[in-house]
């Protein structure tokens, strides 16, 4: 029988979850770490412990740095359960998951949610065509499938767009073009934040180096692009857009979309924790204090799932959440928590210094939040932006009611791909703030479960109770 009671349960084995679990175990807590992937690392350090020399060369130092965390996790006493899909987190700290058709449940006195970020939805005409994937997906395929996207056109904005482009270049598959949405006006608005960003000059230099590399390789870059669409019937065939006062058309069967990442709030929403809309990052964040404590005493949130800061920030906030959890269950006292937290909070602050500059410079264009009427926004149920506007005119005043009006957000992805867009469209239609409009209510199961998994679960719980 597998152990089912733990001091601390951590959901997600990215940088935040790994460091939270390791830190908590170091202080003598029993820790269970649940993660959907076969190996620890999250999306950012995906497969890092198994990279071949060729992959290592292409993916770079920052990626390989994640190997140390994976190693520390392997040497710790953490009970790491890989390849499990968490589909319910109860208010009592019970976390239910399935693995290979079997269901399981663990209970923590405190639960740390470290489920990271997902790509921001980029609803443009043709984004549902096969051959259109996220830039993150292309990177995942380099990391874990050993595959490189060829003749890709990268569309959107943000640091990851340049990182992926240079990685493709290094892998011998130069992208066909970068179609970027940031404008001169974005740059002007970002300038006041430049002095803050200079504190992290190494990151700035790295960014500049990406641009120089792309220029040397003669990868065409179009900036301030608008009216972007993907053409095709059964596959992507071309990207069309306007830039520099001209219409452009670039043929490709591989389009990589990216407009930054946003917190994955499926678990925090399902627990009805408090969330606030962040006007700069333009997404919802669960409300947490400096240590990651959420609005519910049993739950802390660490990493990008609490607000986008990147891998290094996530690793620091993982340790902070562990200290918070340890103190809340009496494993350490508040004094030790605060002394250890102080230094971590300072280093997180310095890691975050470049963030406001990047967030403003690469803020998504309005057409991402206000897609044209005939653009699909809910990929699962194929609901279009114009449908949501029609629902709004008919009196639909909140995201949950769009489900009743037209099944928006009711498909298998449970609103992961349309939630933010629905909130933005309803806010614009009703002239209200995103906070006033709110977000989809999320209910378990967080991921679809089969009936056999459900019945296996009742057997497991029954055995637990009769022991």
């Amino acid at each position, binding site marked *: 029988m597998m152990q089912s009671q733990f001091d601390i349960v951590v959901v997600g084995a990215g940088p935040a979850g790994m460091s939270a679990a390791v830190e908590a175990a170091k202080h003598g807590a029993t820790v269970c770490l649940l993660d959907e992937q076969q190996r620890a690392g999250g999306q950012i350090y995906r497969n890092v412990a198994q990279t071949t020399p060729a992959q290592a060369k292409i993916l770079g130092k920052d990626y390989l740095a994640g190997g140390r965390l994976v190693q520390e996790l392997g040497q710790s006493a953490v009970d790491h359960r890989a390849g499990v899909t968490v589909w319910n987190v109860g208010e009592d700290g019970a976390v239910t998951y399935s693995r290979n058709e079997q269901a399981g449940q663990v209970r923590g006195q405190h639960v740390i949610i470290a489920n990271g970020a*997902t790509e921001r939805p980029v609803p443009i005409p043709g984004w*549902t065509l*096969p051959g259109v994937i996220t830039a*993150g997906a292309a990177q995942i395929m380099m990391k874990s*499938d050993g595959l*490189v*996207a060829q003749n890709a056109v990268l569309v959107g904005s943000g640091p990851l767009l340049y990182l992926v482009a240079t990685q493709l270049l290094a892998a011998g598959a130069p992208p066909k073009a970068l179609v970027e949405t940031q404008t001169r006006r974005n740059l002007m608005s970002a300038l006041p934040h430049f002095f803050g960003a200079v504190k992290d000059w190494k990151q700035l230099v790295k960014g500049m180096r990406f641009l120089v590399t792309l220029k040397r390789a003669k990868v065409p870059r179009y900036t301030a692009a608008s009216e972007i669409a993907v053409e095709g019937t059964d596959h992507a065939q071309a990207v069309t857009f306007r830039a520099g006062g001209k219409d452009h058309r670039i043929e490709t069967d*591989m389009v990589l979309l990216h407009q930054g990442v946003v917190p994955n709030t499926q678990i925090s929403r399902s627990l009805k924790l408090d969330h606030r809309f962040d006007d700069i990052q333009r997404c919802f964040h669960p409300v947490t204090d400096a240590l990651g404590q959420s609005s519910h005493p049993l739950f802390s949130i660490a990493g990008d799932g609490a607000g986008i800061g990147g891998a290094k920030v996530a690793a620091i906030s993982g340790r902070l959440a562990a200290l918070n959890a340890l103190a809340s269950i009496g494993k350490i006292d508040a004094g030790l928590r605060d002394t250890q937290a102080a230094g971590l909070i300072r280093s997180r602050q310095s890691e975050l210094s470049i963030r406001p500059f990047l967030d403003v410079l690469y803020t998504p264009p309005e057409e991402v939040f206000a897609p044209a009427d005939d653009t699909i926004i809910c*990929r699962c149920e194929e609901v279009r932006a114009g449908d949501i506007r029609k629902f709004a005119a008919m009196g639909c005043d909140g995201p949950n009611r769009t489900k009743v009006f037209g099944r928006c957000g009711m498909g*298998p992805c449970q609103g992961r791909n349309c939630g933010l867009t629905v909130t933005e469209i309803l806010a614009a239609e009703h002239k209200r703030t995103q906070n006033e409009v709110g977000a989809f209510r999320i209910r378990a199961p967080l991921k679809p479960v089969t009936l056999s998994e459900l019945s296996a679960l009742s057997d497991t719980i029954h055995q637990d109770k009769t022991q």
Partner: protein
Amino acid sequence: MFKPLETPPSDEQLSFTFDGKPVAATRGMSVAGALFQSSTDAIRNTPVSGSARGPFCMMGACYDCLVQIDGVTVQACQIPVTDGLVVSRVPNTHKGAE
């Protein structure tokens, strides 16, 4: 579409079937990755309009890469390829489908 970063050693090469057709893969690849490698990007039709869809996020969030294994609908990006795995398309339930 996609090319391998390097030639895998022969003991790492696997084969599975998608709708009865053999597909080559390398150990560690997901079903979605291997299908992409074989230039198969359209792997299902949507129930609403019948339009073609393929893998999109590769991290288990979008549910666009649904396939069937042993009669169960699963996400192709979350399933590592094993030798001899039998994968099929999810039935096209769109009203206009033959």
